[in-house]
């Protein structure tokens, strides 16, 4: 017993610092291509970095100018507002609530039926975002499926992508992302012991009471974690909105990632674009810290 326990220890001792070599490659890659860019975000946001004009020749430290500009720029306010609407509409209400409702309704239902509905919802999640954008663009298009359906019912066509552009991108993101929440909640609801709910039924509790007093409190932890994850995923959504509406019409669907892209790569104001990235990054950092805290509890 003693000898067999001592052996691996000796084995480890002989190579006590070998582990550094194991970690080195991954740490190096992350440092150069992930952590360094994050630090660069802080630095560049205080510079006049640009791809064209005077600033392209000489990188200058301009202090808080980008931030002053940002706070004065009305389109920044619009983008922040759009980001919030998009986050709450598609992540919090859409994916989270709809995912929960689907998971709840599916519990104890016919297996084949669950399978079919589950697969359809999952298909949207597995589909790459650009394909989602194409599918939903066609669905909401002037001559698209939705107009064909309402035309069949005798309602005149609506230019969905122009009259309610934010709603279309929110629905697109719900279509793309709800499956994640559905899966998470299915797993969580399966963990709720049946006995507790059955006992409540015996005591005469209504379905609503069971849901609000027993089921939801029981999976509270999952709800918090899922909310954070879904919000973080949604915060970075670019391709879906960009391909569907290009941030427009006007600035109607310009969220922070789209605005950042336009400033940095359309107007070539990299410094200013980076200041906006920082705003996005800080939002992400705050949310991530909440997320990690909720995981540790």
């Amino acid at each position, binding site marked *: 017993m003693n000898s*067999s326990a001592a052996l*691996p220890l000796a*084995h480890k001792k002989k*190579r006590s610092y*070998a582990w550094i070599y*194991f*970690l080195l*490659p*991954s740490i190096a890659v*992350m440092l*150069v*291509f*992930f952590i360094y860019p*994050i630090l660069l*975000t802080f630095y*560049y946001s205080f510079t006049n*970095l640009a791809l064209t004009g005077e600033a392209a020749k000489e990188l200058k430290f301009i202090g808080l100018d980008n931030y002053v500009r940002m706070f004065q720029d009305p389109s920044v306010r619009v983008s922040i507002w759009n980001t919030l609407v998009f986050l709450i509409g598609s992540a919090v209400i859409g994916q989270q609530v*709809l995912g929960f409702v*689907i998971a709840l309704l599916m519990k104890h*239902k016919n297996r084949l039926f669950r399978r*079919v*509905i589950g697969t*359809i*919802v*999952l*298909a949207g999640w*597995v*589909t*790459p975002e*650009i*394909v989602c954008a*194409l*599918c*939903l663009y*066609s*669905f909401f*298009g002037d*001559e698209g*499926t939705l*107009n*064909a359906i309402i035309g069949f019912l005798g309602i005149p066509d609506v230019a969905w992508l122009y009259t309610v552009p934010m709603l279309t991108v929110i629905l697109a993101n719900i*279509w793309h992302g*709800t499956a994640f929440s559905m899966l*998470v909640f299915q797993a969580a609801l399966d963990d709720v012991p049946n006995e507790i709910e059955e006992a409540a039924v015996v005591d005469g509790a209504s379905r609503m009471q069971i849901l609000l007093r027993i089921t939801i409190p029981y999976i509270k932890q*999952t709800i918090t974690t899922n909310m954070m994850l879904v919000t*973080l995923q949604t915060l970075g*959504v*670019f*391709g879906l909105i960009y*391909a569907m509406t290009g941030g427009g019409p006007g600035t109607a669907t310009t969220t922070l990632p789209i605005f950042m*892209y336009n400033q*940095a790569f359309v107007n070539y104001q990299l410094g200013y674009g980076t200041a906006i*990235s*920082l705003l996005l*990054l800080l939002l*992400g950092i705050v949310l*991530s*810290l909440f*997320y*990690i805290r909720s995981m540790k509890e």
Partner: protein
Amino acid sequence: MNGQQRKWVYRILPYAILAVIGLCFLLPLLWVLVASIDPNAMQSLKMPARFTGANYSEVITSQENQRAFAIGLLMSLGQALIVVILSLLAAYPLSRYQLKYKKPFMLTILFMTSLPITAVMVPVYQLFLGLKLYNNVFGVVLFFVASSMPYGIWMIKNFMDSVPNDLEEAAWVDGASVFTGIRKVVAPLMVPGICTVAIFTFSGSWGNFFVPYILLNSPEKFPASLKLYQFFGQYGMADYGQLAAFSVLYALPSVLLYILSQQFMSKGFGLQGGTKG
């Protein structure tokens, strides 16, 4: 409404609601599937007068498309392979040794998994210009690797924690080195975990549009995601049928891998694996 009726409504209602939700999710998807085999595909979903494979054969035989798919595959496979190898190496000491700063390190990793990559793309672009990696397919792979390392390390470490020490120690007694131990004993026992990570990283970069969109600019280097956007974004919706066929082909690897991954994930899906420190 008497009790009997109410009971009946409660039984039917969930099915009705789910069916409506399912239909809403199905329609956009059905369009892409039907349009891809319709010779006269339109923007709206309709029953084709006849079916054709022409859209697919057009897409498949185009050399440009073949190249886009090959580049996409190369990038995603390369990334998945590198991420798995580096994560296995990194996870080993994190799982097996008592390290002083393990906890803060793992928390940093967890923190990094959740940061939106979108937020760092502008500085990454600038960095790539500086490093002469801009418009370089391998450069894109490097960035993909870096951005999925945190997830890879986190997952592989958790999977490795559940592989018992005993077998590995037995191999050491037989004279195996740490490396051989990982390769011959630990890795084979973690096949489900390795496949999960490989599939997720593959799908992540295969489906990603923003990263190559920022870091590449010559059309001949575009992976499938960018090619599709090029068709659909810049040239208008010229040919719905081909566009749909391209989309279906492009989505196929993600779908197949997802189905495959279901076999590897023993407990379906859940967040409980993440709570292990």
